[in-house]
């Protein structure tokens, strides 16, 4: 169940990425992308994230997971291809000398923070 470790790592990454004047409590959405090769089950990841966020300082955070398809480039004929099956063989020249372009790794891609209506700062920019 590497999803639990990943969920914990996501919380830490968000924490490290927040500007100093932003409160973790105000985080409403966390977006990550997962390569298909990483075999992360999005439903499991979201379930575990929800379970641990309750105990964290960002209980409102909702996790959104985008899966990134696996894509390769053939080093022999330069053909780029996306893979349906986990077969790392060039569909044109059958070479196995292929390099991964996308589809591996888990990245934090964005955070949404709810800005509370603050009466003291509410008049700027309005007539």
């Amino acid at each position: 169940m590497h999803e639990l470790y990943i969920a914990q790592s996501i919380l830490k990454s968000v924490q490290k990425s927040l500007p100093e004047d932003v409160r973790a409590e105000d985080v409403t959405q966390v977006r990550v992308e997962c390569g298909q090769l990483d075999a992360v089950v999005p439903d499991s990841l979201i379930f575990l994230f929800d379970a641990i966020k309750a105990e964290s300082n960002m209980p409102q955070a909702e996790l959104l997971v985008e899966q990134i398809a696996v894509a390769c480039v053939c080093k022999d004929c330069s053909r780029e291809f996306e893979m349906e099956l986990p077969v790392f063989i060039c569909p044109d020249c059958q070479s196995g000398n292929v390099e991964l372009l996308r589809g591996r790794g888990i990245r934090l891609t964005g955070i949404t923070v709810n800005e509370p209506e603050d009466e003291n700062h509410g008049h700027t920019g309005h007539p």
Partner: protein
Amino acid sequence: MDIPVIRDVLEESNALAKENRARFDEHKLYVVNIMSSPGSGKTTLLSKTIPLLQQRGLRCAVIEGDITSTIDSERLQPLGIPVVQANTEPFGGDCHVGAHLVQAALKYLDLSALDILFIENIGNLVCPAEFYLGENRKVVVLSTTEGEDKPLKYPLMFRECSVCLISKMDLAPHLDIDVAQITSNIRKTNAQITVLPVSSKTGEGLDAWVEWLVKKS
């Protein structure tokens, strides 16, 4: 307010792995991370491999990853080598050995007195493949009892490894299994991987495996 970020979620784990790597380099220690499904015969394989390495004058140690038990490390005791039990339970029962766990285990080893360190990962073809520990090479053990389609189900594992040992070859004649098909499926996921059929029981293939280790170390 949206805060755009691009950040590797596993950066902390990777940073620890790099620290491990630096320590291994400092001691010119060759480190092999061995992974497999549960029951593929990793521990038995190590118990047969290590004496062959010792005959060649190589000093070995094992970090034995397990969720809770110490059964596998007890099985390695007769070899008379340092074996560090690394249980993941205190760290949340992870189904993989993490870089932090390796770091904790290194405290119990005299790295300057070793040539090869094996990390026997937890039996699982998914999670361990995800994490870099600072090792030189990853090796996967796939037993003949597991069917032909495992490599295609768990491609990352086979992509990440330099060697795939097909274990329990002594059972192959008794099973309805096509070893050529297993090999072909392994190569579909990774054309560069070295495939070595082995049997801990008969000793088949162990010389080739030891030769590979000696050449790399």
